[in-house]
């Protein structure tokens, strides 16, 4: 056996990364793109390559003190600036301050005649000039493949591209090279052959008429990275990537209670409310007051001076505010104070993954203490996907200690598989019921589950009053829970019974009182008789004594008299 010397612990210097400043992207790449190396970003038309690249440069120039060069082979500088102006990127300003340089390389096949040996030294000179003029640390070539349409000699072109990427590495700049997605390979002209440090694939898929953008890191030499497909979002806030791996189960469990906004409901839970950072599902059929219950949670959160983010998928913000105002919940004051934000979007606007990406981003920016999603049942899609994405949202809320209240338009007994999957993610589940009885429809509420706390098992009737949801006193009788008139009737019946019993008791008490008085009188009479008798006895004794005394005196007198006579 060969004695293998223990290999020296590989203290490989960890790869230096250039942060992109793009939400979520730096999480999945564990720090950003490989610094000083080129990265290939490929994808089909309109999937966000240019925007990703431009964001990388703008953030570099503004946040990380790394000026950049954007070499565009397709769009003119003015068009580029105009396209990203809506995201708040001030390209002309950055250019004017010497933080960014845009060079539009125009490749016009019709103007070019090839007449012998050549190279692309012109391009190198241009790039070198641009880099040195702003002191660039970041470079974007978008899309370098346009060169293939301008030059017929692909052998020269490929050799020159290989040289170009090598040259970029020598310059020590962090570069993004974009490439159009090709059939059977990542890019149409096989650029992945030359740029092999980091390859990122962007994708724009349409499923069920809904588009979802996805990003995948195909390869990242020398670095760990997330390997999944991550949905990402492009909207007026720029690009956000929704990371999966950054959400885990390592969040600490908070034990502080937060009020549900309904005192009666708080009292049903041993802690006096939901746990802070827990997820709460409120399920119930149409018109059971789910939104109102959720709005009360939002209201009470804001009343404590904490922020709340309300996502509504069925009503506009105005509509929501008006509707809950009808039951006495004034959300407008919280909107005005900036404690409440209402984000409304139609569920069909984009895929649920995009919704979730947007929600996670908004939560990250607004930093609320409470979040309401009304309703989660608005999302449609394969149940496992919904569960997976919901899990990400729940985890990300938990990680931030944010209490989440989710409503679901599904009564517990008619739940679909998807609903069950969602409910298993929840810590507390409050079920709202319609109880139909004696020609009435009443509302009942119970805590179906609540992890980590004891809670009431009663079904409580509740009413929607002008002070929001109010729980009625529970009636629990032999016949189970009674609601509505049945409860009122039963209560009346019980009250009558109580009155009757009370009257009966009163009567018996009076009876007893009377008998006691009577008995006491008898006792008094007897005592009087006894005393009279005792007096008589004493008198008789006295008389007897007197008589005896008299007799004695008589006898003595008699004797005296006799004695004298004798």
């Amino acid at each position, binding site marked *: 056996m060969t004695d293998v010397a223990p290999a020296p612990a590989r203290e490989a210097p960890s790869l230096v990364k250039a942060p992109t400043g793009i939400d979520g992207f730096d999480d999945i790449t564990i720090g950003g793109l490989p610094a000083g190396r080129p990265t290939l970003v490929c994808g089909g038309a309109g999937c966000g390559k240019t925007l990703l690249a431009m964001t990388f440069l703008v953030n570099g120039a503004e946040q990380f003190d790394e000026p950049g060069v954007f070499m565009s082979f397709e769009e003119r500088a003015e068009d580029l600036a105009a396209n990203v102006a809506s995201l708040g990127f001030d390209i002309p300003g950055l250019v004017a301050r010497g933080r960014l340089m845009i060079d539009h390389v125009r490749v016009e096949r019709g103007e070019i005649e090839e007449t012998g040996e*050549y190279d692309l*030294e012109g391009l190198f000179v241009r790039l070198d000039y641009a880099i040195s003029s702003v002191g660039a640390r970041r470079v974007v070539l978008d899309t370098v493949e346009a060169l293939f349409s301008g030059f017929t000699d692909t052998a020269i072109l490929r050799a020159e591209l290989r040289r170009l990427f090598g040259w970029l590495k020598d310059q020590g700049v962090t570069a993004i090279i974009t490439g159009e997605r090709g059939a059977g390979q990542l890019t149409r002209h096989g650029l992945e052959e030359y740029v092999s440090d980091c390859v990122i694939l962007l994708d724009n898929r349409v499923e069920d008429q809904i588009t979802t953008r996805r990003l995948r890191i195909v390869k990242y030499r020398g670095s760990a990275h997330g390997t999944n497909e991550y949905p990402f979002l492009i909207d007026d806030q720029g690009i956000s990537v929704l990371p999966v791996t950054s959400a885990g189960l390592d969040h600490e469990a908070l034990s502080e209670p937060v009020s549900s906004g309904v005192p009666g409901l708080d009292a049903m839970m041993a802690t006096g409310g939901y746990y802070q950072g827990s997820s709460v599902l409120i399920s119930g059929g149409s018109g059971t007051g789910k939104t109102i219950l959720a709005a009360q949670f939002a209201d009470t959160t804001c009343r404590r001076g904490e922020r709340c983010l309300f996502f509504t998928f069925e009503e506009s913000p105005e509509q929501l505010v008006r509707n809950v105002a009808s039951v006495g919940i004034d959300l407008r004051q919280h909107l005005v104070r900036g404690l409440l934000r209402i984000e409304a979007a139609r569920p069909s606007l984009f895929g649920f993954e995009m919704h979730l990406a947007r929600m996670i981003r908004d939560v990250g920016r607004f930093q609320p203490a409470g979040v309401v999603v009304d309703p989660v049942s608005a999302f449609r899609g394969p149940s496992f996907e919904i569960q997976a994405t919901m899990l990400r949202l729940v985890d990300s809320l938990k990680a931030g200690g944010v209490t989440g209240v989710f409503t679901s338009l599904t009564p517990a007994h008619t739940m679909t598989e998807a609903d069950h999957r969602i409910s298993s993610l929840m810590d507390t589940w409050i079920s709202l019921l319609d109880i139909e009885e004696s020609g009435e429809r009443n509302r009942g509420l119970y805590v179906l589950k609540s992890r980590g706390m004891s809670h009431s098992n009663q079904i409580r009737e509740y009413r929607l009053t002008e002070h929001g949801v109010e729980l009625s006193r529970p009636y629990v009788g032999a016949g189970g829970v009674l609601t509505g008139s049945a409860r009122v009737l039963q209560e009346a019946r019980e009250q009558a019974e109580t009155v009757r019993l009370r009257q009966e008791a009163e009567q018996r008490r009076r009876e007893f009182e009377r008998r006691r008085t009577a008995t006491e009188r008898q006792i008094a009479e007897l005592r009087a008789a006894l005393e009279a008798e005792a007096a008589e006895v004493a008198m008789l004794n006295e008389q007897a004594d007197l008589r005896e005394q008299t007799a004695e005196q008589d006898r003595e007198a008699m004797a005296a008299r006799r004695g004298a006579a004798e």
Partner: protein
Amino acid sequence: MTEGPADQPDQPQYVLRLYVTGSTARSARAIENMRRICEDHLEGRYDLEVVDIYQNPTATIEQQIIAAPTLVKLLPSPLRRIIGDLSNKEKVLAGLDIHLQLDKQLADEG
């Protein structure tokens, strides 16, 4: 067939720029080829300027130079970029819109 004998008096004036990379062999070859073509075909009616892009890098942006060497025909329009060391004379002439074939034909016949 286009008409127009070579010795017509109203022939256009040529404004040409040749962008090269320092004093490489390829640059020298391009300059040499260009000079010959001008003397042979554009005598007295051309303005040729040789630009070294190493010395004058902004020229690459101004004139959209990618390849080197590049000969830019500024006038007469349309603008043309003729790349390479200009060793393929026929292609250069075609790019410059000089109808060599016709000239030759006429010369042979004459």
